[in-house]
């Protein structure tokens, strides 16, 4: 799990550098943050394989596929949460001007730290939660079953 957690932090750093998501970087200089990510990824992998023999059958103490999947999921989740917390602290002064506040999703993390982005989202939700929810779920793609059922309704009406 430590291996996955470390690798996830490293991967997110590299990706944040490529996608220019400044709020996800845990070092102020972008290129140094990407190199740090690469370093942490290599160190995690090396530590994992050099610390002990990892090729163990699941019948004698190794992990079976299900436990591997759960371990990966938990490790990745912890790595992501740690990245969000650390990057929010490091980039505490990364704020959007009022004119840029209509940017949503990951795009907002180019110029605003994660904590502030979530805070803004919450404030919008609290001001008018009905409109907010309607806006979020109006353009969902309709699946084929929905289309067929709708077609039948129209036909028999």
């Amino acid at each position: 799990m430590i291996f996955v957690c470390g690798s996830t932090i490293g991967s997110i750093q590299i990706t944040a550098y490529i996608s220019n998501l400044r709020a996800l970087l845990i070092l102020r200089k972008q290129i140094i943050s990407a190199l740090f990510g690469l370093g942490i990824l290599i160190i995690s992998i090396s530590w994992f394989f050099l610390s002990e023999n990892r090729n163990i059958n699941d019948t004698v103490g190794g992990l079976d596929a299900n436990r591997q999947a759960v371990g990966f999921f938990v490790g990745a989740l912890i790595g992501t949460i740690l990245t969000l917390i650390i990057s929010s602290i490091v980039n505490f002064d990364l704020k959007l001007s009022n004119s840029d506040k209509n940017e949503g999703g990951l795009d907002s993390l180019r110029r605003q730290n994660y904590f502030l982005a979530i805070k803004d989202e919450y404030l919008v939700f609290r001001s008018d939660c009905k409109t907010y929810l309607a806006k979020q779920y109006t353009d969902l793609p309709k699946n084929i079953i929905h289309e067929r059922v709708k077609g039948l309704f129209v036909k028999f009406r």
Partner: protein
Amino acid sequence: MLNLDEKILFTLNGLNGKSELLDKIITWTVSDYLIPVLLCLALICVWFIGHNQSTRYRYQLGVFAALAAMAISSGVAQLISTVIQRPRPFITHDLVVLFYKPTDFSFPSNAVAACFAIAAVVCTFNKKLGLSMFFLVGILAFSRIYVGVHYPSDVIMGAIIGILSIIPVYILRILIEPIPTCFIKVARIFRLA
């Protein structure tokens, strides 16, 4: 007379012990943890990559498709393995085994099928990354034969199952697209998509 499958197996497995460095590298690459975990990390990267929302949305749907393809290929491989029940090569032949000795059946390779499925899906929306993934999975497939836990035909069948698993995923995608879309929208609220 030895068939081609066994000939290739004996040739590759015969390389065991010739180079200590190669053996060491192979014990890493054949691991259940290295290449599968690298592929999953690549999927995490794919989730965040994309300079605008529509590109990211396409990539994020691709991540779900890759996971679905992985599950389908794994299930199919498991099913075929239960039906065919081919014993592992180290049971029927005198081989040098560098890996632990798996207790399940040999045909087809489940790990290779799952990894090929991920690479195949990624290749449909990002050729460069997909081809790099295919290269990594190729190393995994080679390693599995090298250490003596699979016949070449096991990994070839695994690869075929993995690649073909994108067909049901793309058929099912029309049916289930609202589910990942819903998930992506929730993630977008939390500024993670």
